[in-house]
């Protein structure tokens, strides 16, 4: 869970540290505080857990213990293209776990983590509400039904190509604008 913070996140973290002062130093406030931190940073980096522990006067290990218990807290920054693989009942029956495994292998990260370039993150979810299309994966708000292991590589490749094209277009426009 130790990816470097970006400059922007370091600024947000300072902002979070100031906001922390509005919370009473009471251990019952731990979860609301963690929620506030995640709302601002969109995940809980270890640097943030440290200042939360300091504020409440408890050990970091305790903060970590509480935070890891709840599904709502994440410890890795969300990728630019978050991938959600459904493992609800219908998707489970139609081997959603194999789809998840394929994404994990293709992107070389385990579920719950983010690629080092922060482009992709993989997450498992429980039912996205379109069981008739099982197994389902959601990439950046787009639902992909009837997933198959063979489709995984194509989907990721398409996103990467799209990214490259956008970059190229931006470069073409830039000289004209400046």
């Amino acid at each position: 869970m130790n990816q470097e913070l970006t400059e922007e996140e370091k600024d947000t973290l300072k902002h979070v540290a100031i906001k922390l002062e509005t919370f009473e130093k009471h251990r019952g406030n731990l979860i609301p505080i963690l929620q506030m931190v995640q709302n601002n940073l969109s995940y809980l980096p270890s640097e943030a857990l440290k200042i939360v522990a300091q504020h409440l006067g408890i050990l970091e290990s305790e903060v970590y213990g509480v935070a890891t218990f709840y599904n709502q807290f994440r410890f890795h920054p969300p990728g630019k293209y978050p991938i959600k693989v459904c493992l609800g009942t219908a998707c489970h029956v139609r081997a959603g776990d194999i789809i998840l495994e394929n994404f994990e292998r293709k992107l070389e990260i385990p579920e719950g983590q983010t690629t080092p370039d922060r482009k992709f993150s993989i997450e498992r979810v429980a039912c996205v509400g379109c069981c008739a299309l099982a197994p389902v994966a959601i990439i950046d708000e787009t639902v992909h039904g009837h997933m198959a292991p063979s489709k995984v590589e194509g989907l990721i490749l398409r996103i990467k190509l799209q990214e490259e094209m956008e970059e190229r277009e931006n470069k073409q426009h830039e000289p004209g604008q400046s």
Partner: protein
Amino acid sequence: MMLKLLVDNQEIETREGKTLLQACLDNQIYIPNLCYLENVERPSASCRMCFVEIEGIKQPVPSCTVQVRDEMVVKTDTPGVRQLQRTALRLLLSVHDVDCKNCHANKNCELQNIAKFLKVGLKPKRLERYLKETQIDETHPFLNHYPNRCVLCGKCVHICRGKHGQSVLTFAKRGFDTVISTYSVTDVSSLACSDCGSCVKACPVGALALKESS
């Protein structure tokens, strides 16, 4: 005030305010237990081992959560109780690597004792084995933790908190992934882990060990 209870047709005397489990143990009546600590206000009752049947209560109850009452009639070895205990033990063993030969707690292990007492083989066949990937967690400067030996009784967490006000050890994650973790080693120095070792002593199995170099 002294109270009289009847446990397995044997009359025992004990003081008011004790838990039923403690009263039985004090009187040499053994009830299997893993997570029980004396003088803890609200026992976690998490190991599901110390079940007994009490007259007037339909279902077996964990004896660590029951305060003794006068004239209580208790049975510790009914088929219902034994079935619950054996199932709980088999479930614990299904997430345990049972590598006794290489474990420092071999022959001094509560799991082994209970398995012998309940006549359960250490390698139960009916349940699927589910082990954690990490064999040894060596992140703590003075302690090693073996997640696949841990029964998650929580004694170490409790003892540490009792002794230092805060616990370096904590439960992390959830469900099958639950582990005892120290997470951060930065403030360990201020807690004198180097010459405490209470958590290692409290561990009923061999899940915690002092590092040899320290």
